[in-house]
């Protein structure tokens, strides 16, 4: 194929005609040239063409096609408004993932994309649809278990995933120890996950990038959406501030487990002071300042709050934790070939624990605060290049561990509270390059830098020597790291329905998470690379074969990957929580390596009454920590087999049925391999790290969703004619059953010791704790 060098830019936006929301992944085709592009997440498209007249076609499933004719002599910007064929819920076809054609044609490898609207009919957990739980049903993505924080991508840790909500990082994406994600389905529109190595415009993590897009308010009409479930309720309101020019969206969710349980707990019970809830609050404003400028303001606040105060006891415990995020973003079009996206953000995560026991008051906390900005340019020099370049900067302030203890107002010595200041900066450039019609290359380079600066106290503890402290003043440079991060991926179209893709990426991660627990927990400690611990680094090589069948109704892929990880951290054997007091957390850490490799199979039916997917992953993930043990040991999220089946059947306009089945090899954990008696106590002697494997995990969930009729019949008074009138209030009810066959899946195992050592009643048993039996739920959703 030949490209004209005197090309002209044709650009614009595609919007939903009813809501005026931007539409991503609408296909904009130039019929004469047999070329097409997709709109991005802001609804924007750009294509460079030779001068001439062209017929344009805009298509997207569930929308009426638009055809238009353009004459290109100079650069042209034109917006298109797509009209929905019919309300989504009333469609004959339900699409799971609306990116038709992307499976084969996209040059990105290991990318998963989900629209929130596509998952609302899938089985809900206690009435809550959760986009991260759906992502965990895709190949290469998993949770450690029910009740574990975050998600795990291709054998990497939960800290190695960069989770962005409207381009601002969320450090802890879970509520209630991982049972729910922080992303309220009413407040977001879509999610994409790059598990095969991220493009050069993103970095700072070595496993994956998850981008969540917050919903924008309707520019024309007001809407109220909500839902009432068994344990939580949600409400979302959006609409124009100034019609056609600016809009708002606010959304809130709160659980009421504490309120529901209260009548069932006796006042004198030891559980009477038990309480837990979480809430989320999302808000977004968007302003069309001009044809060339858009401004977005997003914010999120989410908190979990656990408290315990026992009747008849002097003990009170309070544990709040959560995220706060605010982001301001401005898009500007310099010219038809040059765009800018600039944003500034604040994000923070903290967890605190306070306990009062008699005259003692204990307060502990850990957290991280980020303040930063990002400037990202897009430049289209010719028809076959799309160049992005820019700069990322983040100031991180860590509080790895703060402890205060006082007794009758006398402060005990818990050491100086540590605040660690770091600056993370990166420059990047990337090009999406169509070398030929069949061969596309994404090539990029990222140069990242990390400054660890004072004030800081380094505790030096050596055997047989008194402790000493090296103090650094504010602004002193303690350690500087930097590195080049090449990223490359390519797609070669074999024919219209199949392609081969491959990718290679190198990433640096200047943050670590240190976990004292066997499961991920909100109290896990974030801390920076320092003069003691180097940044994590990782590289990943991926290759895959992608094939569509029956005009894209079925999609399939096979991907093979290998991932190497360096400078991972674990607490040293024998470390205890109190070791962090009067010391630096990183003094307790040991450094190691990791490797993971696997093969992923994916088969998906994209459209029709019957949709869904099956994914299977065969994988292995090891850790090598010579200071912990001489031989490699499995990562705690090592999962040999992982099978997921998600099915959805649209019986009629009124009913949709869904099922979800998961089978996975049991997770690993460290169990006592022996025990002994010391002073009539039973002492456990733990075996190899993560050497015990729990029983396999499997579960079936079912759901049925009922929709009311979209219209009601009315008779005209004038002529008696019966007409259909759209209902203002729309209802749907989701009935779900979680764990249909009541499988007792393992949450963790422990060695139970019961009875007196000197009696015949003494017994030692391996016990399995399971969290959720069969759990039915019902959620009423409404919209008007």
């Amino acid at each position: 194929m030949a490209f004209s060098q005197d090309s002209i830019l044709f650009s614009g936006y595609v919007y939903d005609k009813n809501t005026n929301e931007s539409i991503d992944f609408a296909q904009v085709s130039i019929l004469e040239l047999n070329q097409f592009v997709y709109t991005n997440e802001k609804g924007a498209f750009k294509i460079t063409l030779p001068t001439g007249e062209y017929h344009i076609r805009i298509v997207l499933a569930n929308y009426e096609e638009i055809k238009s004719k353009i004459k290109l002599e100079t650069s042209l910007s034109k917006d298109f408004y797509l009209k929905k064929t019919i309300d989504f819920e009333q469609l004959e076809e339900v699409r799971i993932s609306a990116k038709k054609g992307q499976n084969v044609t996209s040059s990105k490898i290991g990318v998963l994309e989900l629209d929130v609207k596509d998952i609302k009919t899938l089985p809900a957990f206690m009435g809550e649809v959760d986009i991260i739980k759906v992502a965990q049903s895709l190949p290469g993505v998993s949770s450690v278990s029910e009740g574990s924080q975050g998600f795990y991508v291709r054998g990497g840790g939960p800290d190695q995933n960069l989770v962005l909500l409207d381009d601002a990082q969320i450090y802890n994406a879970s509520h209630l120890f991982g049972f729910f994600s922080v992303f309220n389905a009413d407040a977001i529109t879509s999610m994409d996950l790059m598990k095969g190595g991220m493009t050069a415009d993103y970095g700072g993590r070595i496993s994956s990038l998850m981008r969540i897009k917050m919903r924008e308010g309707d520019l024309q009409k007001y809407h109220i959406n909500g839902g009432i479930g068994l344990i939580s309720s949600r409400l979302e309101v959006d609409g124009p501030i100034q019609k056609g020019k600016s809009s708002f969206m606010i959304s809130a969710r709160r659980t009421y487990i504490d309120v529901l349980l209260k009548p069932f707990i006796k006042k004198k019970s030891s559980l009477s002071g038990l309480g837990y809830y979480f809430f989320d609050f999302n808000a977004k404003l968007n302003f069309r300042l001009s044809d060339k400028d858009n401004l977005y303001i997003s914010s999120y606040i989410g908190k979990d709050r656990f408290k315990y105060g026992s009747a008849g006891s002097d003990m009170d415990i309070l544990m709040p934790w959560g995220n706060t995020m605010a982001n301001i973003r401005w898009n500007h079009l310099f010219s038809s070939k040059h765009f800018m996206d600039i944003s500034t953000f604040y994000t923070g995560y903290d967890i605190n624990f306070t306990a009062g026991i008699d005259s003692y008051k204990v307060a502990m906390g850990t957290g991280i605060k980020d303040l930063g900005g990002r400037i990202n340019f897009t430049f289209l020099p010719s028809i076959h290049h799309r160049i992005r370049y820019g700069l990322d900067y983040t100031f991180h302030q860590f509080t790895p561990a703060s402890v205060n203890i006082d007794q009758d107002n006398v402060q005990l010595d818990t050491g100086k509270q540590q605040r660690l200041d770091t600056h993370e900066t990166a420059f990047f450039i990337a090009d999406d390059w169509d070398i030929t019609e069949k061969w596309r290359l994404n090539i990029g380079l990222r140069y990242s830098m990390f400054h660890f600066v004072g004030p800081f106290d380094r505790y030096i503890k050596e055997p047989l020597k008194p402790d000493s402290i090296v103090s650094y003043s504010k602004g002193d440079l303690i350690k500087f790291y930097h590195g080049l991060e090449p990223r490359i991926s390519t797609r070669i179209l074999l024919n219209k329905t199949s392609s081969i893709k491959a990718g290679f990426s190198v990433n640096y991660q200047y943050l670590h998470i240190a976990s004292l627990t066997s499961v991920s927990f909100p109290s896990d400690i974030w801390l920076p690379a320092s003069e003691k611990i180097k940044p994590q680094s990782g590289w990943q090589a991926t290759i895959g074969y992608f094939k569509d069948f029956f005009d894209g109704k079925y999609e399939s892929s096979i991907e093979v990957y290998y991932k190497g990880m360096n400078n991972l951290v674990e607490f040293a054997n024998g470390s205890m929580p109190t070791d962090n007091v009067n010391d630096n957390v990183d003094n307790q850490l040991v450094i190691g390596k990791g490797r993971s490799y696997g093969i992923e199979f994916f088969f998906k039916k994209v459209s029709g009454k019957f949709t869904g997917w099956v994914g299977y992953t065969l994988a292995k993930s090891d850790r090598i920590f010579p200071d912990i043990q001489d031989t490699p040991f499995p990562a705690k999220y090592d999962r040999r087999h992982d099978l997921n089946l998600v099915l959805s059947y649209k019986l009629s306009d009124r009913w949709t049925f869904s099922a979800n089945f998961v089978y996975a090899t049991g997770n690993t954990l460290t169990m006592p391999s022996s025990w002994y008696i010391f002073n009539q106590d039973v002492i456990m002697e733990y075996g190899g790290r993560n050497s015990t494997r729990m029983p396999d995990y499997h579960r079936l969930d079912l759901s049925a969703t009922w929709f009311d009729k979209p219209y009601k019949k009315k008779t005209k008074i004038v002529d008696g004619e019966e007409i259909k009138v759209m209902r203002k209030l729309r209802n749907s009810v989701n009935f779900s059953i979680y764990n249909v066959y009541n499988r007792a899946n393992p949450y963790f195992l422990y060695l139970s010791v019961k009875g007196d050592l000197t009696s015949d009643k003494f017994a030692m048993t391996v016990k399995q704790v399971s969290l959720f039996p069969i759990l039915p739920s019902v959620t009423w959703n409404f919209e008007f």
Partner: protein
Amino acid sequence: MFTTSCTKAVKVKIPGYEEKIVIEGSIETDGFPFVLISKNKDVYAPTSQAEMLGSYLSGAKVWVSDGTTTIQLTEICTNNLPAGMDTTIASFLGLPVELLHQITICGYVGLDGNFKGEVGKTYSLKVEFEGETYEAASTILNPISISNSYWKEEEKYPDYGYTYHVLQDPAVERNAYLFEVKRLNVDSTGEAKDKRYFKPYVAYFDDEFFNGISFEFFMDNSATYEDETIDKKFRGLFHRGDTLDLKFSNYEHSNFRFLNAILQQKLSGGSPFSLPTNAVGNISNGGLGIWLALSPSYSIMVCE
């Protein structure tokens, strides 16, 4: 949420069992050295009373040296104890004296009247067993006393309460402590309430948070936790009028990690929310357990 959880017994493969010797030995000021030897057990090993009490091994050769004098400890068994040793052994083992009379446990004791623990001396232990040699050393430090003790009645439970103690911690690096208590007053049978020292739930602690300052702590009455003659709500509390023999020992901080690890294991109960922590003692050649030199000081208090 956790109200929906359930627990069941399972049998999973737990690799990594490796037979190791366990040495549990101590010496304290003005006391004889005493050593018990056993082996660790597989998690699926039988746990009958006979198995448990038969865990202690005979046939070892054990020596203790103070740097100038070395003695070989004598293997004695509970069915053949020298007069007056039963309470000492029962206290060490944490067993009722009555039970000790019914069973046979073998240990190693230094019975040389001229070889008793002295402040400032370092005691080295050497054990030969099944062709292997295990060694350890520990020093008896200067004693540190509790400066004040009192009892306080709990508002909700008249005549019952915890004991409170004030410690002036020396401003030297890292001190570690062991608190034990024995009730001396007689019960309804005319016997002393406690025939040995009992350790409260958190008996071992160090001065991580109060180095060099005055620190007040409270202690519970662990002797009553299994006493079915006492109403459950009063268990763990001392009764008004109890006369208490307090034994407060200090020891090398390097040995605290072992004892603290045991406490952490007890507190966590094997939950996944804690790091698997092995208790690493001072026994060489891969042996488990600890050789501990204690420096006790004693005081008497009355709960009133």
